[in-house]
Each structure stands twice: as C-alpha cells, then as structure tokens.
C-alpha cells in the first residue's frame, strides 16, 4: 500500500487519530510493519501532527471576557431570568412553557376551545328558541282549532276553501 494512495492514506490518517476499529487497526499495524513506503509516510504524518500540536498550544482566554459577558447577561431582559417567588414555587415544566413554541401551541388550543364553545352556545340558544316557537305555534293552533276560524281566511288574508277550513275541527270538538 502506498501512503499517497488516497483511500489508504485516509485509513492511515484515521489510524493516527485512533478512529479505526480493532480489526482495521490490527491490519494497519501489520501493514506498517512490512511496508517501508507506507511506514515512512505514516511517520511523517505523525511527526507533523505532533509538531503542530506543539506549535499551536492552548492559550488562556483573558478574564475580561467573563466579566463583560456577565455584565451583558445581567443587562438581559427579565424574560430569561425567573426570579423571586416564581423561581422556587413554580415547577420547571411550567416555566418551560414560556418558550415561544409552547406558548403558541397553548394559545392555539385556548382559541380553538373558545370558538367551539361559542359555536355550541349559539346552537343551544337557536334550538331553545325553535322549541319555544314550536310550542307557541302549537298553542295558537290548538286554540284556533278549538275556537274555529271566525274570519274564514288564511294567514295572508285569502278566503279559505271549504276543504281547508280546519280539517281537524271535528276531532278537536270531540266528534
């Protein structure tokens, strides 16, 4: 295997980072022990890696980053900082409802419930009114049937034909 071969080079690089499984790592080790070309390439990569790690050591961040950061956090609006009684009396899951997505979902549910309730109430009122009208009409009709139709006219003022002149009169009068 040649170190310059792309696929094999990738494997050697992964081996250097400890990213190969046991079986592949063992195969790589065996190959490196027998192939001087790959071994030279691998040693070069390893040496450069160690040199790079030494050339770019971790630096300590200055303390003023933290000071400034927490000054900015302190100046953040209260929405991000529950305080006082809220902080210890409310369970976490209620506080988490403050997140926008949850708030939107809850608002949608409440709105839907209000619309459905209003629709139901309106139906209920309509139904009641209809029952009352039926009841009223029946009362009038019965009274009219009992008393007969003294004017012998229909609701539009047209004269009733003999056949439509209260066909239930006989029944209502007990005949």
């Amino acid at each position, binding site marked *: 295997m040649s170190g310059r071969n*792309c696929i094999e*080079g*990738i494997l*050697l*690089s*992964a*081996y*250097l*980072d*400890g*990213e*190969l*499984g*046991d079986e592949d*790592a063992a195969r*790589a080790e065996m190959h490196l022990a027998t192939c001087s070309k790959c071994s030279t*390439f691998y040693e*070069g*990569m*390893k040496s*450069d*890696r*160690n*040199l*790079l*790690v*030494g*050339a*770019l*050591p*971790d*630096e*300590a*961040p*200055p303390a*003023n*980053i*933290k000071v*400034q*950061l*927490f000054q*900015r*956090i*302190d100046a*953040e609006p209260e929405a*991000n*900082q*529950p*305080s006082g009684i809220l*902080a210890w009396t409310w369970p*976490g899951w209620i*506080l*988490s409802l*403050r*997140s926008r997505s949850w708030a939107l979902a809850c608002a949608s549910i409440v709105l839907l419930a209000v619309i459905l309730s209003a629709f139901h109430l309106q139906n209920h009122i309509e139904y009641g009114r209809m029952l009352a009208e039926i009841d009223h009409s029946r009362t009038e009709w019965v009274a009219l049937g009992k008393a007969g139709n003294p004017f012998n006219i229909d609701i539009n003022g047209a004269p009733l034909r003999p056949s439509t002149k209260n066909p239930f009169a006989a029944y209502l009068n007990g005949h």
Partner: protein
Amino acid sequence: MGTTENLPNSFSPPDIGMELPEALDTYLNKAKLGDPESFSEIYDRYVVRIFNFALHLVGSREDAEDITQETFLLAYRNLKDLRDQAHFEQWLYKIARNEIYKNRGKAKLRPDSLDDTEKGIIHILKSADPASNPENNLLSGELGEKLKAIFRSLPMQYKETLVLATLQGLSYQEISGIMGRSLSSVKTDVYRARLIITEKMRKYSSV
C-alpha cells in the same frame, strides 16, 4: 483501536466527554432557569476550548475574544430551547462556528483585512519558496513557525477539521455532528489537510 501516542508535553489532552454527565445536566437545568452561577460553571468548563477553537481559525486574539463572548451570550439566551442536553458541547461548538464565519465575513469587508499574524505568515511562506532566497530559509525561524504558516494557509474547512480532530481531540463522529457533514467527508478532510502539510513540510525540508 489505533494510536494515541507521542503527544508533546505542552499539550493537555482535551477532556471533552470526560466530565460526569449528571453534573453537567444539573448545571444546565439550573442555568435554564436563569441561575447565573450554574452558567458560570458551564462557562469555566468550556471557555478554553471555545476560545482556542476560535483563535486557531481566525488567527486574531482580539477577534477570538469577541467570538467567545458572543458564543456564550447566545448560548445563555438560547439555552432554554436546547432539548438534547447530552449534545451540549456540539451545540456550543456550532454556535462558535457560526460566529467564526460571521467574523470572517466582517473581516473581508475591512479595508486592511490582514492582521500582523497573517502578514507574518505570508512573509514566512514567501521566504520558504525555493525560488526566492534559499539562504533566508535557513534563517527564517523554527520548523514550528513554518508549520504554523502552512496551517494558516489551509482552506477553512481543512483547518476546522484539523483543529477539532488534532488540537481539540474530538472524535470524527463529534466533528461530523458539529460541521453537519458525513463521517467519511470529515475523515477525508483530515487526511487532505495532513497531506498538504506533509508535502509542504517535505518541500521546505528539502530546500
């Protein structure tokens, strides 16, 4: 598994994933409720890593400080939306990465976008050119400086993978999550970055 040998003494291995998950979980839960002390603990644990990630990629200490501060501020503001706390580190790196790219955009708009470090790197690279002045190569400084210069000249994508894999000790899987790329492309990028470095170093040594 493969090797982890021969790291120089100056390098302290990153402790990513080494801390107790319960402790981090507790700090995150409290920080989500607005507890600044818990957030301070989280900051202390990750600031060195985030600062150096930014520093290696942007090359300017001042910019790295700004990026670090913005990263943690954004993390604080958006912590309540973090659902998968087990991937907090990756999430933090992603924020830092966004800030680094934003910073690069701003830097390009500056009239003189090269800071002193970059100018120095260009000088070293020029002096390493065999066609320029071979005598200067012997005087141009340490091998490490040359390596640094080569590193800085790498494409951003290669630098990112190399910093995360080599300097910060993250696994390819973690890097893949941070960069939003496949495992195989991460593997390839690390290799290509190394190949460029190795070839340029050989060229430099042979001069």
